[in-house]
Each structure stands twice: as C-alpha cells, then as structure tokens.
C-alpha cells in the first residue's frame, strides 16, 4: 500500500479530503493508498502532496520561495 501525505495549514474537511484522494488516485494510477494528513502552518496556505518519492508542492510558502529565487 502506498502512503500519501498531504500537508496543509488548516485541517481538511470531507469535501477537500475527497478531492485530495481523487488527485492522489489520478497521480498514482490506483486506489491502493493510505492518506496521512499533516498540519503545518509554515506552508501559509495551499497544499503539498508527497507519494512514492514524488512531491507536488502548491503551497504559498513554496510560491514565495520560488519568487525569491527568481
């Protein structure tokens, strides 16, 4: 079973959790995964997904970091 970690600044509601699962399924290509939710205020906003060595970072903190590096 694959472990999918979702990091956000606030807790996910059911609707958002479902959307996260949908995206994880689309990225993994299967439904055999376990979702682990983590709260991290340092991401400021947005969402970060980690699965099977892949990281998808769509957080405000990452965007600010990219702006800073640009």
């Amino acid at each position: 079973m694959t472990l999918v970690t979702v990091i956000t600044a606030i807790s996910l509601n059911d609707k958002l959790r479902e959307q996260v699962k949908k995206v994880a399924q689309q990225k993994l290509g299967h439904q055999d995964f376990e979702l682990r939710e983590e709260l991290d205020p340092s991401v400021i906003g947005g969402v970060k997904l980690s699965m099977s060595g892949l990281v998808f970072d769509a957080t405000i903190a990452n965007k600010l970091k990219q702006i800073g590096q640009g």
Partner: protein
Amino acid sequence: MEIQVGAILLQMINFGVVFGAVTVLLIKPVRRILDERSRKVEEGIKASESSMAKEANLDKKAKDIELKALEKAKTILDEAREDAKERQATLLKEAKKQAEAIKAKAQADAVKEKQAILSDLQSQFESAVVAVAGKVIGEELTSTKHQSLIKEGLKEIETA
C-alpha cells in the same frame, strides 16, 4: 881537479835507480790515484749535471701539472658558476610559477568566498522576505480563503 868518471857513472846509475824506483813506486801510483780522482770528479760532475737536468725536467713537469690543474680548476669553477646560474634561473622560474599559482588560487578562493557570502546573504534575505510575506498573508487568510487555496493547489497538482 881530476874528473872521476867512475864516480860520475856511479852517481848516474844511482840517480837512474832512484829515479826508476821513484817513478815505479811513487809517481805512477800517485798519477793513478789522481787519474782515478779526476775520473770520479768528472763522473760526479756528470751525475750532478744529469741530476740537475732531471730536477729541471721534474720542475717543468710539476709546473705543467700545476698549470693543468689550475686550468682544470678554472674549468670546473666556470662550469659550477654556469650550473649555479642555470639552477638559480630555474629556481626563480619555479618560485614565480608557484607564486602565480598561489595568487591565482587566492583570487579564486576570494571570488568563491565572496560568492558564498553573497549567496548566503541572498538566501537569508529571501528567507526573511518569505517569513515576513508569509506572516502578512497568513494573518489575512480566513478559513474560506484557506479552503479556496487548497482547491486551487489541488487543481494545479492535477494538471502538473
């Protein structure tokens, strides 16, 4: 006065005998000794001359050897001076090369250090900017806005 012929004859015979005896017993040995002595003196002179000639020859040889030794010493000294000059030039060249290499390395290190410091400063500045911006944005975000940002993020990930 009467001339005594017999006595004269006797005297003459006597003289002849004495003369003969002196000649045989004294003059001949003395002459022989003198001749021997003269021969020895001549031999001594010849030996001395030969010895002097040999000595002169040895002196000449010694001077030749000394001259050759001096020439050889001069040649060795000249070669040593040349070698020393070449070695000095080589050492100077190597020292210059090493100095240039050290200088180049020091310059490269300085540039690298400067870049590292600038990079570190830039990183610190970026971190500070992100922290400040994050704090400002975070204070402005409501729950609804958070949810909206998560939705947008998921869409972004979906299309990535």
